[in-house]
């Protein structure tokens, strides 16, 4: 199965990287208490973890653990990694879902508009917006929005997923949404840029095709052409693009959650990296690979549904 092969590749890659790294797993685990442990104790710990074993043994051991679903214990959170990922992903998912839908729909709309009136001032404005946003650092845009909406205008909270000091079971739906609003909007705004530009490009290509030329020859006006032929023919690239954007969104969420101190998977990634939480980091790497893979597979599944040539191909008629 392709997924299996891919994940094994990622596993090998990750393991090799971490083995080569100057990170000492024992030190990473012990942390600040390193000073208080004797060399003998360090050796004992190393032996217990099998760190003195040759490379392949360690790798296969580790791989075996992973395949059984045992991703280890997070050093930062002191809970099993799988639990941490599950909890954190729930928080991120809401933000990602909103951003994914919004950036997809708005991106499609703006891109189609820009492509249809390519060269006009509307197109120029849309392009300016998209190019500028695409060139802007994600965390800076987040910062900007935070400053405007939270600090200056005070219509959104400055941080976190809930008001500070409130117990999680007491957080209301409104408070929850209120805290989700700005991070989700930020991620959406950033995601729109790329989708707009690519959709625009695709529509322009379609508008230069032979069949559009023929439609024009039939007396069809621009908007009908876009309606009947444009949208249909950019649907496939649009869907591919949409699912591919999941990867970028995940990366974007790392930065956005950092700026808004939103306790999602992205923020956990940063924590893991800064505090050398190897099990957590590895778990998140695997998870993100799975996430991207699912996205791509869903896109592949859409192809036969939309393109009759793939669905029916090979059925010729006399």
């Amino acid at each position, binding site marked *: 199965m392709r997924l299996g092969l891919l994940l094994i590749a990622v596993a090998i890659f990750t393991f090799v990287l971490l083995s080569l790294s100057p990170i000492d797993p024992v030190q990473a685990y012990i942390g600040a208490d390193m000073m208080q442990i004797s060399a003998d104790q360090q050796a004992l710990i190393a032996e217990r973890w099998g760190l003195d074993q040759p490379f392949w043994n360690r790798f296969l051991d580790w791989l075996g653990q992973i395949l059984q679903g045992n991703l280890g214990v997070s050093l930062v959170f002191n809970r099993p990694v799988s639990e941490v990922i599950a909890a954190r992903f729930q928080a991120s998912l809401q933000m990602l879902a909103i951003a994914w839908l919004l950036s997809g729909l708005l991106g499609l709309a703006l891109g189609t508009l820009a492509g249809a009136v390519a060269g006009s001032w509307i197109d120029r404005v849309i392009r300016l917006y998209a190019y500028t946003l695409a060139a802007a650092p994600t965390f800076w845009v987040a910062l900007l929005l935070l400053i405007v909406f939270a600090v200056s205008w005070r219509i959104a909270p400055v941080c976190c997923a809930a008001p500070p000091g409130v117990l999680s079971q007491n957080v209301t739906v409104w408070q929850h949404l209120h805290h989700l609003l700005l991070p989700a909007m930020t991620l959406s705004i950033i995601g729109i840029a790329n989708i707009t530009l690519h959709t625009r490009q695709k529509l322009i290509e379609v508008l230069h095709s032979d069949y559009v*030329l023929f439609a024009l020859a039939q*007396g069809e006006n621009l908007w009908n052409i876009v309606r009947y032929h444009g949208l249909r023919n950019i649907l496939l690239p649009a869907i591919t693009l949409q699912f591919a954007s999941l990867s970028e969104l995940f990366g974007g969420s790392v930065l956005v959650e950092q700026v808004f101190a939103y306790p999602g998977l992205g923020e956990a990634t940063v924590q893991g990296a800064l505090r050398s939480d190897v099990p957590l980091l590895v778990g998140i790497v695997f998870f993100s690979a799975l996430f991207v893979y699912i996205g791509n597979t869903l896109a592949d599944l859409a192809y036969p549904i939309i393109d009759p040539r793939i669905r029916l191909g090979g059925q010729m008629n006399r």
Partner: protein
Amino acid sequence: MLSLSNLSVTFTQYDRGLRRKQLRVITDLNLDVQAGEVVAVVGASGSGKSLLAHALLGILPQNAVMSGTMTFQGEPLTPHRCRLLRGKAIVLIPQSVGYLDPLMTVGPQVQRVAQLTGRTKAAAKTAVKKTFTRYGLPAKTFDLYPFQLSGGMARRVLVSTAVVTPAQLVIADEPTPGLHPDVVSETLTHLRELADAGRGVILITHDIAAALKIADRVAVFYAGTTVEIAAGRDFFTGKLRHPYTQALWRSLPQNEFLPVPGNQPNLEQLPQGCLFKDRCPWVDDLCREERPALRELNDGWVRCFHAEG
């Protein structure tokens, strides 16, 4: 019905380093078409014939500049008028199914063509189905995608796009290449029928033999300009006027099969004088300097100083 006079089309293109070059694809084209006749526009591949069709419909790309006069049914054919008439009074039969939307079934596409001429959706659908039946296409053709059509079926669907309209001028762009001879004959017959029904048909092709089967008159195209306008039968009675036409006739497999020596001139830099001078057996100093105008000769037209009756 249609009259073209001194039509010229030039394209601006950018090369590497942003050097600008101008390609003059159509030069001083003259042509006229009456109702009920088939006029073939014949010339080598790539000599700008398709662009003529696009010019008549007003769908040339934006980097094209057009000059000269076009008159349709007594009124000038301005860009505005082109937009009003295309699909209704002037229609195109395209070269291949590549000109149909690949993700849409063919029935609704032809139906749309009919709707654009003013019919209601229901009336359009009936018209399409009637036409398909008339051309012997099975009923399920309506719901097939373009890629599912065989060569013959595709041709008939493409011709239907013209038939469902009341258009008086039909432009058939290269309808024959790559097709089985039976399909070719059938296509040509359909086009002849259109003309016999009172429409004017322009047949753009590089296949003279095919054109001569149904054409009333033939306009010979070279390097973007008309070099001769002859009656169809002139080819068989040996009454050809221009040296290029004669060479073209001789080059046919069923005749002497002699290729025409030389190459078409570079469209970026059209030579002074006659455009055919580098390949012409009759060339002299006069035609090297001056470009001949189209003149009447023996009930036809020719662009040559030396052509005799």
